[in-house]
């Protein structure tokens, strides 16, 4: 039996059902992220685990015991909030000590533990500061230390990095993961940022409309998206309108150019279909078995990656390549051939994968 289990959990606010029969098992020490857009039910699910929302139907089990009737202050779960929620009337040290004192720990023990926690977040010199004297990143570190001080059975983080600057976000993200690994604490992390979820988690649960769309290791989610929604939500994706040429061989036509998708297609020849390819699955040149030709529309330099937007007929395709200083990047207006493996193609029905809005900067829509 898993450490934390959700069985067919449902949450309704009046007539509005936010979580629709969600089941999940989290192993002890695992780092699991809920990833999804706003309104997908990820935060509500986390708040049900924390006890701030009641469960309309279903059950939440922690270490085998049902949490449904346990009030939030008896669950012993550490919680970190998006807006830090530090106690403004208390110093850093007293914020961290708060939970320990409630747990009835003695003065010496409390002081020792507070010191340990300050060490853990590298803020030993800040014990006597008040929250308003700290930066956002520092406040969130303190909030993390405060949540962990009581040695909770699990750690819950609700978009903890959303209010921070990009640079601090990256550092704190690594710190959270390092601390989580060091303590081996079971962690549930809620975020709308796919890069965050993929980089920090053991497993990612992609949520949509109150259900888990797909759950798996970041590698699986990215490389083998189980549904078109996951495919478009995670990473950048080129979605191309195509027609079926040969269903049994899996051949399709995009803007008059034929290529294979590796698998038979359960559709008639001439039918409309969508083919999705990740930008990094495309390489410049004629080397691969599949090719698409087009005109270079835009070249974007993204640091380590160069993204080339190619116009193929009336559609746009993004191609990512590593930045290689010895190579000359393609010029705008140049004819270019891209090659890719048939296995890189995901074939879906037209209604399952909406086409991006045709624009030169169409790769932005896939990320949004």
């Amino acid at each position, binding site marked *: 039996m898993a450490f934390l289990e959700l069985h067919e959990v449902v949450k309704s606010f009046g007539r509005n059902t936010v979580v629709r029969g969600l089941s999940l098992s989290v192993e002890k020490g695992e780092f699991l992220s809920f990833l999804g857009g706003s309104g997908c039910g990820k935060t509500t699910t986390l708040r049900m685990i*924390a*006890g*701030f929302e009641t469960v309309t139907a279903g059950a939440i089990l922690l270490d085998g015991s049902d949490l449904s009737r346990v*009030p*939030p*202050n*008896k*669950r*012993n*779960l*550490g*919680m970190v*909030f998006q*807006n830090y*929620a*530090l*106690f*403004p*009337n208390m110093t850093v040290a007293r914020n961290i000590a*708060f*939970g320990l004192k*409630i*747990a009835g720990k003695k003065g010496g023990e409390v002081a020792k533990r507070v010191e340990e926690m300050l060490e853990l977040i590298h803020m030993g010199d800040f014990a006597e500061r*008040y*929250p*308003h*004297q700290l930066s956002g990143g520092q406040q969130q570190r303190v*909030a993390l230390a*405060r*949540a962990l001080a*009581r040695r909770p059975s699990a750690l*819950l983080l609700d978009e903890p990095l959303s209010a921070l600057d990009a640079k601090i976000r990256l550092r704190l993200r690594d710190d959270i993961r390092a601390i989580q690994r060091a303590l081996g604490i079971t962690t549930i992390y809620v975020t709308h940022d796919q890069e965050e979820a993929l980089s920090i988690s053991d497993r990612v649960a992609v949520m949509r409309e109150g259900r888990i769309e797909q759950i798996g290791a970041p590698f699986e989610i990215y490389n083998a998206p189980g549904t078109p929604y996951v495919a478009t939500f995670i990473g950048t994706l080129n979605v191309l309108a195509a027609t079926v040429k040969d269903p049994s061989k899996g051949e399709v036509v995009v803007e008059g150019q034929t290529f294979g998708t590796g698998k038979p297609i359960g559709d008639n020849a001439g039918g409309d279909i969508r083919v999705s390819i990740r930008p990094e699955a495309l390489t410049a040149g004629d080397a691969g078995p599949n090719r698409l030709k087009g005109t270079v529309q835009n070249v974007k330099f993204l640091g380590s990656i160069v993204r080339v937007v190619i116009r193929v007929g009336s559609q746009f395709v993004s191609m990512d390549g590593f930045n290689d200083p010895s190579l000359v990047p393609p010029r705008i207006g140049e004819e270019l051939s891209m090659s890719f493996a048939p296995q890189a193609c995901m074939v879906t029905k037209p209604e399952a994968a909406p086409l991006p809005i045709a624009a030169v900067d169409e790769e932005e829509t896939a990320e949004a």
Partner: protein
Amino acid sequence: MSSRRGSRLVFSWIWIALGLVYFFLPLLATFLFSLRAKKGVLSFLAYQHVFADPKFLQTFGFSFEMAILTVIIGLALIVPTAIWIYLKLPRVKPVIEFFTLLPFVIPPIILAFGLIRTYSRPPFAFVSSPLLLVAGYVIISFPYIYKSVDAGLRAMDLRGLTEAAQSLGAGWPTLLFMVIIPNLKTALLSALFLTFAIVIGELTLAVLLAWPAFGPYMALMGRNLAYEPAALAILSFGLTWGAIGLIQAITRGRPGGGSNLGGTH
């Protein structure tokens, strides 16, 4: 541009000066008048008379006690209610806002007659108890207490702090006394101050319920004497300003206190 801003600044100062004159001129006039009890010289004779009258301290003491009781009962009723409404029943907020207007709409004299009629015969024969007066004062000061607490709750992240405290194991008493009230300090002090200001000078309820309070005493003095009421007025101003100074002194520089008024950091 800068000259326009400059002239705007000058106008601001003129308006401030006019305002100060408007407020302080009568005070100054009253003060000067209160010093003229002895013909031809300025003296504190009127003040001596005021302090010589045992009724001054008696009535002031009585009103002071009533004010303390009003503050205690008012805060005990309103603070938990307001917190509860913020956390659990935000829909009820407009209803409470409407209730806070009632003490302004219903004159104290109606309130007094209502209290007397309702509580002067069994089973509610409370008219002889000063608690009935306190109850009336709680009603009169309710809008001020509620508005202060409301402003204080609005300025803090009540839900966030509540959930943070709960996730750390805090029950309601810990949450209330360790987290919410320390962060409401400024709001509670302003509620306390306003309540004192109202109760110390209150006339109608005290007269109609026949209690020897400070308000009726001042009114009586005003009818019978010339210089002493002026001295009383100056004294009550002094007490008021002293109270403000005290609040400033207590809250200054303390996080969660006065310095927190600037908003969230």
